[in-house]
């Protein structure tokens, strides 16, 4: 009797597992490398919540992508490069795309994902020269790169100085990591071009203590300070700048140094602080209404729903939207809803997010339009400047979206990617 029951049990389990596998294979897997714990969690959580809410909304509203549900397993990296690589190895099977959310992890994944045939999408971060699709077939970093960011910040400073910054002093306060070091080369080239003096001020992880850095700034009195920070480094830097009475409107952070988390602890002292951005703040877009209707109102919000409409949450929405759109395009190109990772890459390379398409997706005026091509994986290269209003506790866009110095940036991208291609023996494509 017991043997019979056992056999029935095993048979039932096998049927159940095989039917699950069948469903799983048909679904589209978008693994998420997140950091909901540790020193960088305050940045990681709102961003991950944006991703999850968007995927849930697509599953609930549209029944998935072309009828295929989105699976979005999370793997906690704690913003640690080694753990991120382990997460990739664990989740790479049948994965459509990886969004590492760390430049350090992205650098490690570039050769691995290229060998495995998995798309890596580092939205506005990662290795800048990956914008060259001729060399980096599987890597995308649209809509804008760090080198664009550096030159857009300098362009903004130029504009505020009537086009002449010769002899001015610009300091870069940066996270002493692959991420923070990314803009140095561009800024060095721009300093030669425009004649400004560049001061480099690294801050070690996590950036809790920056007193000496800001004493140096107080002593050297740079005309402008740029910041490539993340996590607690941003909050301490903004507070320290306010404390030494550095003019906040001369302090510009990259788009990862411009969330509500970064300025709120400094209170009124943060008033006027600027950062670059490639997406708008706020929660009044159609996509927010849909998420509210299909996800939050049903009690399905990721986390406690408190990050809804914040800068990093909105960025998560934007990143998820591009990833979903790539799948939609891939399905159209290949005429099947059951796309493979290779088909997905084709979709990502053909993404064309025009203003009209953005509106259809509920992102009207949320971000500037961009499209990927075989040669260009770096998108439009557009970013705007936003400024913190400490009284109203909100970010205001104060410029139009603008381009960086493409002469400088494109030359540097070509140099760096050619060097990488030679090292890795990669033959250029798209010819």
């Amino acid at each position, binding site marked *: 009797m017991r043997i019979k029951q056992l056999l029935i049990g095993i048979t039932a389990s096998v049927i159940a597992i095989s039917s699950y596998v069948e469903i799983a294979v048909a679904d589209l897997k978008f693994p998420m490398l997140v950091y*909901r*714990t*540790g*020193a*960088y*969690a*305050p940045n990681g*959580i709102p961003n991950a919540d944006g991703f999850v809410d968007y995927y849930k909304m697509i599953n609930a509203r549209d029944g998935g992508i072309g009828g295929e549900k989105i699976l979005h397993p999370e793997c906690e990296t704690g913003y640690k490069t080694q753990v991120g690589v382990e997460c990739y190895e664990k989740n790479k099977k049948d994965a459509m795309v990886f969004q590492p959310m760390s430049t350090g992890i992205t650098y490690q994944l570039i050769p691995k994902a290229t060998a495995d045939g998995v798309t890596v999408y580092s939205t506005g971060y990662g290795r800048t020269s990956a914008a060259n699709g001729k060399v980096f077939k599987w890597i995308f970093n649209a809509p804008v790169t760090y080198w664009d960011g550096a030159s857009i910040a300098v362009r903004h400073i130029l504009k505020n100085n009537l086009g002449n910054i010769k002899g001015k002093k610009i300091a870069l306060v940066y996270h*002493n990591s692959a991420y923070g070091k990314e803009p140095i080369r561009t800024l060095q080239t721009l300093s030669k071009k425009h004649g400004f003096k560049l001061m*480099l*001020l*690294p*801050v*070690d*992880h*996590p*950036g*809790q*203590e*920056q*007193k*000496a*850095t800001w*004493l*140096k700034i*107080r*002593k050297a009195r740079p005309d402008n300070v740029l910041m490539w920070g993340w*996590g*607690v480094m941003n*909050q*301490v830097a903004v*507070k320290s700048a*306010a*404390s*030494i*009475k550095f003019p906040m409107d001369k302090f510009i952070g990259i788009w990862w140094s411009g969330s509500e*988390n970064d300025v*709120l*602890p400094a*209170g009124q*002292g943060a008033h006027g602080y600027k950062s670059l951005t490639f997406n708008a703040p706020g929660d009044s877009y159609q996509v927010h209404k849909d998420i509210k209707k299909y996800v939050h109102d049903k*009690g399905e919000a990721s*986390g*406690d729903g*408190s990050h809804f409409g914040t800068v990093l949450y909105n960025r998560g929405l934007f990143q998820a939207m591009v990833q979903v759109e790539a799948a939609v395009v891939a399905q159209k190109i290949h005429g099947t809803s059951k796309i493979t990772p290779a088909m997905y890459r084709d979709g990502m390379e053909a993404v064309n997010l025009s203003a009209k398409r953005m509106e259809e997706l509920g992102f009207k005026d949320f971000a500037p339009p961009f499209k990927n091509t075989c040669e260009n994986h770096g998108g439009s290269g557009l970013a705007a400047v936003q400024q913190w209003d400490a009284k109203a506790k909100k970010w205001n866009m104060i410029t139009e979206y603008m381009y960086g110095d493409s002469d400088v940036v494109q030359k540097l991208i070509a140099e760096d990617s050619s060097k990488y291609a030679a090292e890795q023996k990669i033959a250029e494509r798209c010819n």
Partner: protein
Amino acid sequence: MSVELLNFIETVLNGLMSGVMYSLVALGFVLIFKASGVFNFAQGVFALFAALTLVGYQTGQVPFAHLINELFGTNYHNWYASMPNFLAIILTMITMIALAWIIERLVLKHLVNQDPIILFMATIGLAFALEGVGDLMWGSDVKVLDVGIPSGGSIWLEEATIGLAAEGSDYYGMYIDVLNVWATVIAVILVITLALFSQYTKTGRALRAVADDHQAALSVGISLRTIWILVWAISGFIAMVAGIMWGTESGVQFSLSLIALKALPVLILGGFTSIPGAIIGGLLIGVGEKLAEIYIGGYFETGALENWFAYVMALVFLLFRPQGLFGDKIIERV
């Protein structure tokens, strides 16, 4: 006076002030190590947990709200709008005492007479567990901590020192963050209170007796367990003070637990068993790292000396004086 000399004095002063902030963390380590021989790796997490709890009480956050809402489908987040600072601090102190009692009951009681390395490993586990509980209890968002301590550059000092520079020199005046001045005052009060407590109270004397010799203290009827709870509660209180200071400076967030790493070189320098050592060690480390970053940082391509120079200082001290400046000399009888 030359601007260079004034800048040098400013760097030293700021180093001293930063050193006090490190000492606040190091004090908690020293107390526990003195009384129980345990190197409490969780001291940084104690500071984080205390700061999280304080903000939670201040803002009326429901503890474990996310878990409760997930399990029961409710939507509780806050049960009142705000609580006066004084009351919130008292409640946080009570929570830290309760935490000390729980740690003694659940961990230390079961590890009496174990090797120091076992107790050290237990505190590593405790650090991670407590960090997880803190996350579950209060969430991972950056929290603004304001208990009314002023912060920002001291205008008074700036104005008082601006005239010290030579005529015609372009000098701003000296900079010191008022928050650090407050931290110094609080640290001085804390050390004096601890000294008076251990010298002139019965419990304080019992505490010193346990620190000197566990067996002898037990033989005269001192309850080791009570002393351990007391010591852990006091270091919990010190962690709260450190958490308030550091949390006010950077907002309360999980990287706060990493301030423990700043206390390690302080302890190596000052000695693991000396309260004055923790203070002097902190001051030396603070001044050393600031001077190194500002005056020799530029010669290093990678820069960011501020973070690791303290460990270089500690290493040099270890080579010449392993017990630290004020630590007990290590004598092994064969």
